């Protein structure tokens, strides 16, 4: 059942690089990450790659496989034919460090700009009461494994480097949505969503939703409702209609 596959793997660093050809053994049931590991063990011990769990849970092994943003550990070799050449390249939206490893610090900087969860001041630990239906909406976004594949595919930053300054990308828009939908959060993040995170840049192409390995409905359940809430507020700044949201009015986010 084993066969030899043809791989093209991008090798290089910040100053440049190229695809390098490899012929490598493939066995039944293997995933792309197994093949990368076989290359390390047998042909090119210094091939740089990130991974941790090898089970689709940590979001470390993101790369582009034949141009498509994917987790290497969840991409089975059986999805390709034996004749097919498989190209593995680093995520294009982020600067390359070496080979398949990119500098994803942009994401950590944006994370730091999201105003944190703020529960009511008088609510004691242990006294939190929330209904399952109410937590489920935020829970969907908390499934995020921070693989940053949605960030990689989003054309706003993929094709326009300068936009990184003003736009935080789908991952952090759903983080804002998640906090906004948290039943016990007290902060209104609508202004920062627009002003600090560039909500308006998103033109709802839904490419991010398509690549999310967790199946999070980034656009339909996160970004669109957030945009609607912002519109509500901008039309009627005194009172939030909040048709989609159970909560009443929140106080505006403090500067971070």
């Amino acid at each position: 059942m084993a066969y030899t596959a043809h791989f093209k793997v991008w090798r290089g660093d910040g100053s440049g690089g190229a695809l390098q050809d490899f012929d490598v053994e493939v066995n039944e049931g293997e995933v792309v990450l197994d093949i990368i590991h076989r290359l390390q063990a047998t042909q090119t011990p210094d091939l740089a790659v990130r991974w941790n769990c090898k089970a689709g849970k940590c979001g470390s092994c993101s790369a582009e496989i034949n141009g498509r943003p994917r987790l290497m550990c969840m991409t089975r070799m059986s999805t390709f034919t034996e004749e097919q050449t498989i190209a593995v390249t680093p995520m294009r939206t982020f600067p390359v460090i070496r080979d398949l490893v990119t500098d994803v610090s942009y994401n950590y900087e944006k994370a730091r700009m999201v105003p944190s969860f703020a529960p009511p001041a008088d609510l004691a630990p242990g006294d939190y009461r929330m209904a399952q239906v109410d937590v489920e909406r935020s829970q969907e976004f908390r499934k995020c494994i921070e693989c940053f594949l949605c960030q990689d595919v989003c054309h706003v930053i993929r094709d326009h480097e300068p936009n990184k300054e003003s736009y935080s990308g789908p991952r952090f828009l759903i983080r804002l949505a998640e906090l906004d939908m948290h039943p016990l959060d007290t902060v209104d993040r609508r202004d920062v969503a627009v002003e600090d995170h560039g909500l308006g840049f998103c033109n709802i192409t839904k490419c991010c939703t398509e690549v999310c390995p967790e199946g999070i409905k980034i656009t339909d359940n996160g970004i669109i409702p957030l945009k609607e809430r912002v519109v509500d507020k901008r039309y009627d700044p005194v009172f939030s209609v909040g048709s989609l949201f159970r909560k009443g009015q929140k106080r505006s986010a403090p500067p971070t």
Partner: protein
Amino acid sequence: MVGLAAKPYERTTTVVTAELERHTYDVVVIGAGGAGLRAAIEARSQGKRTAIVCKSLFGKAHTVMAEGGIAASMGNVNEHDNWQVHFRDTMRGGKFMNSWRMAELHAKEAPQRVWELETYGALFDRTPEGKISQRNFGGHEYPRLAHVGDRTGLELIRTLQQKIVSLQQEDFRASGDYESHIKVFAECTMTRLLKDKSGAMAGAFGYWRETGRFVVFEAPAVILATGGIGKSFKVTSNSWEYTGDGHALAMLAGGTTINMEFIQFHPTGMVWPPSVKGILVTESVRGDGGVLRNSEGKRFMFDYIPAVFKDQYAKSEDEADRWYTDPEHNKRPPELLPRDEVARSINSEVKAGRGSPHGGVFLDVSTRLPAEVIRKKLPSMYHQFMELADVDITAAPMEVGPTCHYVMGGVEVDPDTAAAVVPGLFAIGEVSGGMHGSNRLGGNSLGDLLVFGRRAGLGAADYIDKLGGAHPKVVDQIIDAAAAEALAPFREEGGENPYTLHMELQQTMNDLVGIIRTESEMTEALGRLEALKVRAANITVEGHRQFNPGWHLALDLRNMLIVSECVARAALLRQESRGGHTRDDFPQMSAEWRKVNLVCRVDENGVSIARQPLVPMRPDLLDLFEVDELEKYLTEDELPGGGH
């Protein structure tokens, strides 16, 4: 041997200490899993400047993989639960080898630590009354595990990560610098702990994975939170990070480890396809109704209920099935016995020729729960089997078998403060030892991380305050020696390949020091480890220092070899079977052996092991058990009232 105890190298050192990147902190936390992050939050909250150093990116530590939940006796689902019941379950699970003080602190404080996570923004699944929902797990008398579907670890790590971000935002508002009080150094591996002349902790040495450049942290308090050792075994649920670094670092710095012979083989890892062999199938599958069957379709666990547990488990399938809906009047199914029991039973079934096609047994939920319930309650398992094995678990059984999962052994610590024997060194989470005795209950690790993470943060702050500003100073020669050791694999060309050595080590440990052990095999293992050590001294790596996984593995191998030797030596000495240590040649549990901890040390001559008496349990805790239960574990002299 691979540079034990900072042996100076013959070659002159290549590092000019002046060129080193140096940082000064109050507390350095090595490890950014649940334990490390909780400790860092506490240390920072005590006003200490804190660095968090970790091998992978922030938010990716191994804790992210935890599935089932956090054990805490909140009593939300069954009001009879309380800390005493949790304490009893923990001691039973560990077969009374646990540090009873740690088990007590854990049982008492876990609920507060879970509730605190909600104040950080965690969103657990809820009960109908809106409280945190709790699920059944092996060895826990009541539904006790706070959870979020089967991705509890992700919730835990993200919550703590986001709490740290919120502290950084506070610091930014106060100082204009996010990182003024707490900074994460990600993808940075520590290879040595540094001491001052008196032997007190003074910092840590390591390298940036990205550039290969060396870095020194100077700090009076170092908290180890490096996780486990599973990567020394071939079939494991653990990630590449689990190379036993903290265990080895502590011992190389004069610290001690205990319980190293006790390794938990989780009963249910995937067995097929080969490339995913070992990946965990969460215990919640059984907690939520899944059953184990052999090739004859028999629920074989009923044949394996050990005498010590026979009063606590169902005798028939009917009773077991009734328990899910009426736990008050029925006993629990034997599929929920502690992990060591289930793992051994599966092993026996497979050996007896009653296994599944790929050498496991069948774990079935498909005939037990409706498809939509399975998808709702076990989403990542559904996903995992669909994506990786082409199996739809709502329609067909899974094939599962034991996988190396958790090391009960670890750095010997003071239960209240997590302090190790080296002044200024602390250890928490999976790298610490004692809490779980000879076998850990599911869900007790995540609680352990939070309870002792917080305690270590407090312990370190207190230790620093007592120093009164007289911070230990790192000796420069030690830094040079550490740098030379790290560069050794680049010295020559054409030596041993680190990947080959790693594979041989994994095979050795799996085959000879695995789930069932005998003297002859372990003696053989020690011989092979000796040979591997010699070869490891001649490892060479290609390429340069920038993000070079071959080099990283070469350095990790030192730690794996030290830890593997501890496991094998301790396992050879302990002539009984208990929890995560099963001897074919000594199949019984021995009350005499229960009184003995095996303590591992490392010096110029390598690994050595000493016997140390276990601290007798406090009488009020002993009173929580019936005497006839204690008789199963303790010697006559230890029983309350001297065994009357």
